[in-house]
């Protein structure tokens, strides 16, 4: 990360895409009548949006460059705090949802921590450390939360109804 | 006979120039002030096959063939057995043949025509570069009293680019033929007087469909060649670009109809043309047009079926597939022009209906008129231009593509209109266009798609009507048989038998009230159609109350139904 603007674009995109993905996951869970997990994902989306709003406030008045999605400097292809669609399963439980969210928060944390470590820019370092600390809080929160949701018994993904024919 | 007309058949194998001679004769007759019709009968060979040019010339408009041929000019007898049945002769007919081509076949001799030998080939050989078809032309024009100057003009137009010598040679052959014209007793067209320039047209049914569609606003055509519809597409390929439209040749009929649907969805009135096998392939996508309410015109030129059938010969056997061929409850439009001249109007009207009703429309022409040339009065310019009910700004607020409306027609947003984005869908949908499996959505969309066809005012164009509207005897037919039916009704009237003729242009939706009103008071009905299974009769019987006594005159192609047969059937039914 060379400029503050570049860093803020990454942070905004990270939270924005995280929120959007949680929305998508909530929607697909709703379509598949998994309302418990849908509700959880909606809450996650809400938290991501809170964080997004926070970052946007910090970015106010600063010049933000446009960076096409494929030129963002993520460790992987997608933004680090985005739960992969692949994690979704229509019978998934709150445990799975929280685990997925936890994984995404951990990669988010690692991303900010990495920026804070590697950047030469003190302002970026300060912000990145701040965001990393916040992610750490989220991680702790999710870990607490997970204590209430033990892993489901084996065979949780067994479906007595076969897949349906559609079109 | 009300119209003084002469029917002439020219037959010969490839190389004899039968088709060219027929074309020139028709044009010469047109120049001389006559009307006329020329159809053709061809063998299955691509080159060199037997062929017949079948003409009917008259001083009054002609829409169909006569009962018999007054004159058969046979350049040779190649494969005459294959199509002799299409050349009815009687004892008044004259058969002119070349004695060098062998004896007159029994099938020609049997009806007892006058046989006249003219050594066409030998005469032609006497003129360096002379051709037998020109000799034949001289012979015929002289026999029927056609103005020689008209033929001279046609020859100059046709051969002028080959130089004066070619024109002179042909003209010498014509004159030599004229000298050999020693038969008498053939109907003559002397009394024709030339029409004002431009007041008459020479046009084929297929070209006429192309022109009508172009006039109706079609600017995108997706094409796949098929006999006998290809000429529609060929004509449009050349002429559409002149008015800013485009034709694209596709990989198959599945593509052509879907490409036309795509063009239409994009907002450009679109069409394709095909024949039975192609129509069969298109039916799934036509259903998509119904469900997605995307207008498209499919001009289907009927030929012998089922399967590959008889591609080069006429039949009216695609009525069932046109009306019933779509899966699901799929109300749509089926029209049929009633003559070559009417192809212009009906094609234009069909585009108008498809666009106004946002619905696929199948126009049913047939080989008999599609590939026939006619000399006709210049068709009137009519005001029907395809116009869709396009969404206005108010419609685009919370836009619903398939909004339920009183007339069943929903304003359509076209790509490029901000706020009108929607997905046109073949899946049943809610008014928004979003797919839905709900019973209520299915019901209301089916209702609206039916309602828009039922509530529309088709005006007087739904049918051609002729004869005595009060007659107890009624006659219903469609398509190219309408000409023969008109002739039959005229002849019956002259014989003191009043008949009312109804030839629906609009076959689907069946005009129940109008048909029943048109039939009110009729006690007997004859239904005439060119197919084996009496498809029109069954369509009508399934929708309307028919008179107490109904009879069919129906026959599969390729033998056309002639006026005399209709007169006989009417007379029998009246008795």
């Amino acid at each position, binding site marked *: 990360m060379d400029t503050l603007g570049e860093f803020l674009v990454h942070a905004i995109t990270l939270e924005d895409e995280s929120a959007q993905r949680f929305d998508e996951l909530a929607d697909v869970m709703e379509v598949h009548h998994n309302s418990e997990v849908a509700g959880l994902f909606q809450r996650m989306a809400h938290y991501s949006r809170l964080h997004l709003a926070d970052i946007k406030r910090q970015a106010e008045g600063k010049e933000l460059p446009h960076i096409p*999605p494929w030129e963002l400097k993520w460790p992987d292809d997608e933004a680090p705090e985005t739960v992969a669609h692949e994690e979704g399963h229509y019978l998934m439980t709150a445990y799975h949802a929280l685990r997925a969210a936890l994984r995404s928060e951990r990669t988010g944390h690692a991303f900010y921590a990495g920026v804070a470590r590697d950047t030469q820019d003190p302002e970026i370092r300060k912000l990145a450390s701040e965001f990393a600390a916040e992610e750490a809080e989220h991680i702790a929160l999710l870990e607490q939360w997970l204590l209430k949701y033990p892993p489901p018994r084996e065979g949780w993904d067994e479906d007595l109804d076969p897949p349906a*024919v559609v079109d | 006979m009300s119209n003084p007309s002469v029917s002439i058949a020219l037959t010969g194998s490839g190389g004899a120039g039968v088709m060219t001679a027929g074309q020139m004769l028709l044009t010469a007759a047109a120049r001389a002030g006559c009307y006329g019709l020329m159809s053709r009968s061809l063998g299955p060979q691509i080159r060199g096959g037997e062929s017949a040019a079948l003409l009917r010339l008259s001083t009054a408009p002609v829409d169909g063939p006569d009962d018999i041929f007054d004159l058969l000019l046979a350049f040779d007898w190649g494969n005459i057995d294959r199509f002799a049945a299409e050349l009815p002769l009687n004892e008044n007919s004259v058969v002119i043949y070349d004695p060098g081509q062998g004896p007159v076949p029994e099938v020609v001799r049997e009806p007892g025509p006058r046989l006249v030998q003219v050594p066409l080939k030998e005469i032609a050989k006497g003129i360096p570069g002379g051709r037998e078809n020109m000799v034949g032309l001289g012979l015929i024009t002289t026999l029927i009293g056609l103005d020689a100057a008209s033929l001279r003009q046609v020859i100059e137009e046709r051969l002028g680019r080959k130089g004066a010598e070619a024109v002179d040679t042909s003209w010498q052959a014509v004159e030599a033929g004229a000298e050999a014209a020693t038969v008498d007793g053939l109907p003559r067209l002397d009394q024709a007087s030339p029409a004002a320039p431009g007041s008459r047209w020479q046009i084929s049914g297929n070209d006429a469909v192309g022109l009508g569609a172009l006039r109706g606003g079609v600017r995108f055509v997706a094409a796949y060649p098929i006999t006998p519809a290809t000429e529609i597409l060929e004509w449009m390929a050349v002429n559409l670009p002149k008015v800013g439209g485009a034709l694209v040749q596709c990989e198959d009929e599945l593509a052509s109809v879907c490409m036309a649907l*795509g063009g239409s969805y994009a907002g450009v009135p679109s069409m394709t043309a095909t024949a039975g096998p192609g129509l069969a392939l298109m039916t799934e996508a036509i259903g998509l047009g119904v469900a997605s309410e995307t207008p498209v015109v499919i001009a289907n030129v009927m030929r012998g079926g089922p399967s590959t059938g008889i591609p080069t010969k006429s039949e009216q056997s695609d009525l069932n597939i046109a009306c019933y061929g779509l899966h699901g409850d799929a109300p749509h439009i089926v029209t049929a022009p009633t003559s070559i001249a009417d192809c212009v109007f009906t094609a234009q009207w069909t585009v108008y209906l498809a666009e106004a009703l946002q619905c696929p429309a199948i126009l049913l022409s047939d080989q008999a008129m599609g590939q026939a040339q006619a000399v006709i009065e210049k068709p009137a310019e009519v005001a029907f231009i395809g116009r869709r009910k396009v969404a206005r700004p108010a419609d685009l607020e919370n836009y619903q593509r398939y909004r339920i409306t009183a007339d069943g027609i929903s304003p359509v947003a076209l790509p490029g209109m901000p706020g009108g984005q929607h997905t046109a869908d073949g899946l049943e949908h809610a008014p928004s266009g979003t797919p839905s499996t709900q019973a209520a959505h299915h019901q209301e969309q089916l209702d609206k798609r039916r309602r828009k066809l039922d509530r529309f005012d088709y005006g007087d164009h739904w049918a051609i009507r002729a004869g005595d509207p009060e007659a107890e005897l009624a006659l219903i037919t469609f398509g190219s048989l309408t000409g023969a039916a008109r002739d039959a009704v005229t002849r019956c009237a002259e014989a003191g038998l009043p008949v009312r003729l109804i030839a629906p242009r609009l076959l689907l939706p069946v005009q129940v009230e109008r048909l029943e009103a048109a039939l009110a008071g009729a006690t007997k009905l004859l239904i005439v159609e060119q197919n084996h299974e009496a498809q029109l009769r069954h369509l009508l019987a399934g929708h309307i109350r028919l008179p107490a006594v109904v009879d069919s005159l129906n026959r599969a192609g390729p033998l056309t139904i002639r006026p005399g047969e209709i007169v006989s059937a009417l007379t029998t039914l009246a008795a």
Partner: protein
Amino acid sequence: MSAIDADTAAPVLKASDYKSDVKPVWCPGCGDFSVLSAITKALAELGIPPHEAVVASGIGCSSRIPAYTTVYGFHSVHGRALPVASGIKLARPELTVLAAGGDGDGFSIGGNHFIHACRRNVDMTYIVMDNAVYGMTKGQASPTTEPDWTASKLTPDGPGISAFQPLEMALSAGAQFIARGFTANPNTLAHLICQAIRHPGFSLVQVLSPCITYRPEQRAYKNRVHQHFGHPEPATDRREAFARLMDDDGFSLGVLYKGSQPVYQPAPAPSATPEEVAAQFAIC
């Protein structure tokens, strides 16, 4: 097509502006979500207003995609996405036209159209979400299914015939932009789609899009994919592109080929009125 340079101009609309509020019926975990995301990102980057783009599709899971966008859409019949899309583009060249669908729709029932769309080279982009299975009819083998895949009741011993090679076919038939993407890399996929849209002529983007319901083993695609068809730059020479394909294991990602054949787009200039055209029939 819009001449906006995707690399510099700031988009007016965000990717999310191209997503409709219709909730997809796709299974949770389906790769097609990423394709939807990538398409919306590409359109946003290109700055194409939603009302100036059209997505046409056929039938199948992935063919549901038009309704999930805010652009114009035509969800047609099975196998006919390409003719419908071609008709739209030929009739209205100023529109940005995409066709989208699955491997069964595009390569089996629509196989003939695929070949001829490549040949015709209309300026549009075809995105095939390839999961090597028919999902909406409960998991039958598709043209791209391996011959020994035995999980379908319809072909209990496996389809037993060679898998269709979409990229080889596209290259043979004349497609001018050929690429392969993967749903676990949605941003790279967005870039591929962006390039495909910008490239004049017919563009194919084959997207490996796992079906977690009928082909759960496809989750392992992520361990098999690798960058490039043997070279970081696309081939511009067909011979070279064929050579690279001969070494392709089906999991190479990126742009294989960029050609420069002229685009097919009739552009008639009107020169007459219908009545002037009709005059040809008049007998003088």
